[in-house]
């Protein structure tokens, strides 16, 4: 594989050796650790609910930080300036932890008590509705697949930008490495690999920041360039609207409905395991995002042009242009791939788990024993990786715009999970109405805001807003209204169901 990489690369091959060595080390570490696994379904799908605070923090953070956080944030700051941090990062520091605390811990408790493995199992049980499960299945899978594509396409564009390796080859290597360790070790292997990869990409991010600022003449000079050449990027005026800023806060609510995050929550040893994650998550976001945002505005100040007008290629260009040392370039490339793979692994495992439990096992009853379930899970993971890889060969032109739409889709389902854990009066009909309305409003706005302009060959420059607000505002308002109105108009859930999921007080 390394030889193939070398043949394909017209630039220095040293960075590829560094990346190859990193991938081999990661693979060795993950496979070695996964040998300890006991091979049961509980171990493969939820790590026997035994993950401690440090691993939970690293796996949750590594999973939420994807190509969008590194490549997308730099590109977005290049276009819109420093306001991107307040828009996406500091808000997430408050809201992600809020969701972990108020929703994540409760879902962990319910999952442990009733031995749930997937989000759909929980919703089926809570609302006593098979239909809701079948409705959620295509919605959740349909929203995760574009999210996976973002990672594979992002990895390809970064490696191509730095070393010239074709994107199809990078995608193949990344998918192959991730597949190798999750097939053997399941969600525990994903958590362990995420811990390593999160440490790597955070250290490498700090290194990139230091080296890039140094190559631009130091921190002060790098910012001075922006003051002289692109001063508008140092503030939000003219770049981000007030209502857009305020309503963007709804987007991070998406973490409450990410199925891969739900699965990581279930791996926690105890509720106390969440403490480190809740506290450290905002700081970790800051460590990753502040350097990326500064690199983005510095690139604009230094007169860097986005290759082909694609601002998402700015990070790769800055690393490639500013860092002449191929060893360092290789290290940075490995760091960026680490961030991307730490999301891909959890998402692949999660989709395999959903197919196994929510479709096959749900429809066939207890026909499959534990070992057969693990085999089924592995089969589905391979199939999903293959399908996603094939889709990544024909990426949509606005793949990073797709990210915010995916997050908005998950966020529009957030009222459902809140009602499921806090509102006893929420009914199955209300839940179904909420999912249908969320899906319907998402589809209409997605068509109008991204699909139609893309099909017409228009390049999306501006954010798609409704009366100055993010479209997610409309989606959440509509799905919440549907949930409340239909629940109140229909028969309340039985006392037995309420008693199962809510404490007597």
């Amino acid at each position, binding site marked *: 594989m390394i030889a193939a990489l070398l043949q394909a690369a017209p630039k220095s091959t040293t960075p590829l050796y560094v990346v190859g060595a990193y991938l081999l080390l990661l693979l060795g570490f993950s496979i070695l650790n996964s040998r300890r696994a006991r091979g049961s379904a509980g171990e493969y799908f939820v790590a026997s609910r035994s993950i401690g605070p440090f691993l939970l923090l690293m796996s949750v953070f590594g999973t939420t930080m994807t190509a969008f956080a590194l490549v997308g944030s730099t590109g977005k700051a290049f276009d819109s300036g*420093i*306001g991107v*941090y*307040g828009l996406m*990062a*500091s*808000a997430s*520091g*408050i809201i992600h*932890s*809020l969701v972990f*605390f108020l929703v994540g*811990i*409760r879902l*962990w*408790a*319910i999952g*442990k*008590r*009733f031995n749930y493995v997937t989000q759909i199992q929980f919703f089926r049980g809570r609302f006593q509705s098979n239909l809701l499960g079948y409705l959620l299945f295509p919605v959740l899978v349909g929203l995760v697949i574009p999210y996976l594509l973002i990672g594979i396409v992002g990895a390809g564009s970064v490696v191509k930008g730095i070393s010239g390796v074709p994107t199809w080859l990078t995608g193949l290597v990344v998918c192959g490495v991730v597949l190798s360790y999750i097939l053997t070790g399941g969600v525990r292997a994903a958590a362990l690999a995420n811990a390593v990869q999160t440490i790597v990409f955070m250290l490498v991010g700090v290194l990139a920041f230091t080296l890039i600022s140094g190559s631009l003449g130091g*921190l*002060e000079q*790098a*910012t001075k360039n922006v*003051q002289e050449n692109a*001063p*508008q990027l*140092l*503030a*939000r*005026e003219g770049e981000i609207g*007030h209502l857009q*800023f*305020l309503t963007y*806060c709804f987007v991070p609510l998406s973490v409450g409905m990410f199925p891969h995050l739900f699965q990581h929550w279930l791996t926690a040893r*105890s*509720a*106390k395991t969440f*403490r480190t994650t*809740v*506290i*450290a*998550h*905002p*700081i970790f*976001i*800051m460590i990753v995002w*502040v350097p990326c*945002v*500064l690199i983005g*505005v510095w690139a604009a100040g230094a007169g860097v042009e986005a290759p082909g007008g694609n601002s998402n290629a700015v990070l790769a260009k800055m690393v490639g242009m500013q860092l002449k040392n191929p060893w360092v370039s290789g290290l940075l490339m490995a760091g960026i791939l680490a961030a991307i793979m730490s999301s891909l692994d959890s998402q692949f495992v999660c989709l395999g788990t959903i197919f196994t439990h929510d479709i096959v096992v749900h429809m066939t009853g207890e026909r499959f024993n534990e070992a057969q379930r693990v085999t089924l899970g592995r089969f589905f993971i391979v199939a999903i990786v293959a399908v996603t890889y094939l889709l990544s060969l024909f990426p949509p032109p606005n793949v990073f715009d797709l990210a915010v739409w995916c997050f908005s889709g998950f966020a529009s389902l957030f009222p459902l999970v809140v009602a499921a854990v806090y509102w006893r009066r929420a009914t199955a009909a209300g839940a179904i109405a909420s999912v249908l309305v969320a899906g319907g409003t998402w589809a209409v706005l997605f068509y109008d805001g991204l699909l139609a302009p893309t099909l017409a060959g228009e390049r999306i420059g501006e954010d798609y807003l409704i009366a100055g607000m993010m479209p997610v505002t409309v989606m959440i308002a509509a799905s919440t209204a549907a949930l409340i109105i239909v629940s109140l108009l229909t028969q309340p859930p039985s006392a037995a169901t309420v*008693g*199962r999921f*809510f*404490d007597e*007080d």
Partner: protein
Amino acid sequence: MTQKLSSGGKLAWGLVALLAVLHYDFWNWSDRSVVLGFMPVGLLFQALISVGAAVAWALVVHFAWPTHIEEWAERPADDE
């Protein structure tokens, strides 16, 4: 799965709410000034919001931890 909040817990949640309000720093909207020689003031303020969020969440975890949830999770599911 509910519990009463102590005064420390109320204070901790109040700090989270305050940070959520301060996050909308309209007074920095058009301020292009730079502090420490390189840091745009709007970015520094938002980075401090992140630091504040970690502190606020530490206080929530300390003063408003939902101990009852863990007890509920450990109870056998068939006791109801």
